[in-house]
């Protein structure tokens, strides 16, 4: 008889408190310490011939561990938009000439209960604007396999939105959306984790843009998204490569591909530089019509000239610098550039006669862990 390694190791692993705390993490992280985050984000958009639009968004994040196995997480954001509303077609100039000067307040609260190999979270969001109110709820459960090398995530959400445009076109219009997500995350090796998830959303109600002269969209929208992520850790602690891809399609005829790449590289004094690159490409909605406005419009049929529904490609390039000070504080600065061009669409031609959009964001964040 030779009882060998497995029983010895199994008995050793049953000893209390000897596996390093960090090693107990599986595909998803169990509740850690509390955390407070502050972030100020600034967004500025340019388009030839149009006024610039500017958004400032201060936000607060709080994560509080409660009792042994609960966390409460809250998020408060206040975004102020100023400048003209976005004008995509130069031929549309003046058609949506209402100056935008809007403030949005949003609050998200999530409570999570952690079990030995599972978690259950309930959350709600409230968002208020002059012309758009949204209330949403969600429930998300995760289940870990016995060896914690696999985590299944299942979530459902519901959102109840009301639109009251300031120009009186939309008066107390409603839109309701139900969505669901199923995902699997897997530990592949001691340095690779991958996740696949699918989301389905079904919405019905008012989808038109009340500020556009001609905009009639279908009364419902079904969306599907498949997202794949792969995170790779290098030998140097903190050095991580993240790759993500999302495939999206909806009942409006839009198919989109988005690829995200981020490489986190720590330097000697623990400050971290993270360059990232994102590419997005989408086809146009079935009812999107190229300018000039009105071309292809048939009364009673859906119609939109909203450039967001057009075919184009977009690239985001960003650089983030993360500087820790002390063991609990961390600050970060992020600069990103966004550019959208019809010619950059992949797998097909972009919509003609669109002006390129450029945007620049600057973010500064501060996080405190306790």
């Amino acid at each position, binding site marked *: 008889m030779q009882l060998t390694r497995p029983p010895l190791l199994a008995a050793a692993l049953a000893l209390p408190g000897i596996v390093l705390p960090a090693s107990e993490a599986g595909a998803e992280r169990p509740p850690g310490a509390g955390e407070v985050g502050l972030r100020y984000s600034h967004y500025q958009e340019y388009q030839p011939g149009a006024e610039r639009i500017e958004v400032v968004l201060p936000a607060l994040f709080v994560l509080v561990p409660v009792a042994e196995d609960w966390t409460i997480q809250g998020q408060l954001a206040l975004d102020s938009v100023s400048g003209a509303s976005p004008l995509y077609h130069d031929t549309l100039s003046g058609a949506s000439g209402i100056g935008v000067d809007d403030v*949005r307040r949003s609050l998200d609260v999530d409570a999570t209960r952690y079990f030995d190999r599972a978690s259950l979270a309930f959350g709600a969001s409230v968002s208020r604007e002059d012309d758009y109110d*949204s209330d949403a709820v969600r429930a998300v459960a995760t289940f870990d396999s016995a060896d914690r090398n696999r985590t299944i995530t299942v979530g459902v*959400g519901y959102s109840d939105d009301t639109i009251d445009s300031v120009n009186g076109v939309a008066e107390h219009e409603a839109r309701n959306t139900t969505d669901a997500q199923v995902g699997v995350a897997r530990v592949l090796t001691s340095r690779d984790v991958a996740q696949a998830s699918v989301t389905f959303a079904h919405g019905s109600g008012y989808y038109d843009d009340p500020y556009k002269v001609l905009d009639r969209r279908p009364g419902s929208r079904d969306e599907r998204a498949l997202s794949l992520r792969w995170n790779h850790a290098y030998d140097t602690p903190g050095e991580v490569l993240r790759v993500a891809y*999302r495939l999206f399609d909806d009942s409006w005829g839009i198919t989109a591909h988005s690829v995200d790449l981020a490489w986190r590289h720590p330097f000697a004094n623990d400050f971290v530089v993270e360059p990232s690159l994102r590419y997005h490409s989408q086809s146009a909605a079935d009812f999107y019509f190229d300018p000039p406005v009105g071309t292809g419009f048939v009364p009673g049929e859906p119609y939109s000239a909203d450039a967001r529904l057009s075919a184009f490609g977009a690239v985001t390039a960003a650089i983030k610098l993360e500087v820790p000070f002390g063991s609990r504080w961390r600050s970060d600065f992020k600069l990103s550039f966004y550019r959208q061009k019809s010619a950059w669409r992949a797998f097909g031609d972009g919509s003609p006669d669109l002006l390129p959009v450029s945007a620049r964001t600057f973010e500064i964040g501060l996080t405190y862990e306790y």
Partner: protein
Amino acid sequence: MTRALATLAIAIVLAGCAAQPVQPWEKRLLAQRAMRMDGGNALERDFARQVETSREAARGGEGVGGGGCGCN
């Protein structure tokens, strides 16, 4: 073609084909904040999503029940 690729990719993640299951003590690198699937910073992620959805038609793939906003 995209459908076939997507199916294949899901199959790889779902399949129980890992050569050797990773043991708890081998997960030090995986436990880093930067290795989290959500990226580790909720505020940063939400702002990026807001910028994207205000300019693009696609969304989803990252959780459910997010509040809508008039920006899209």
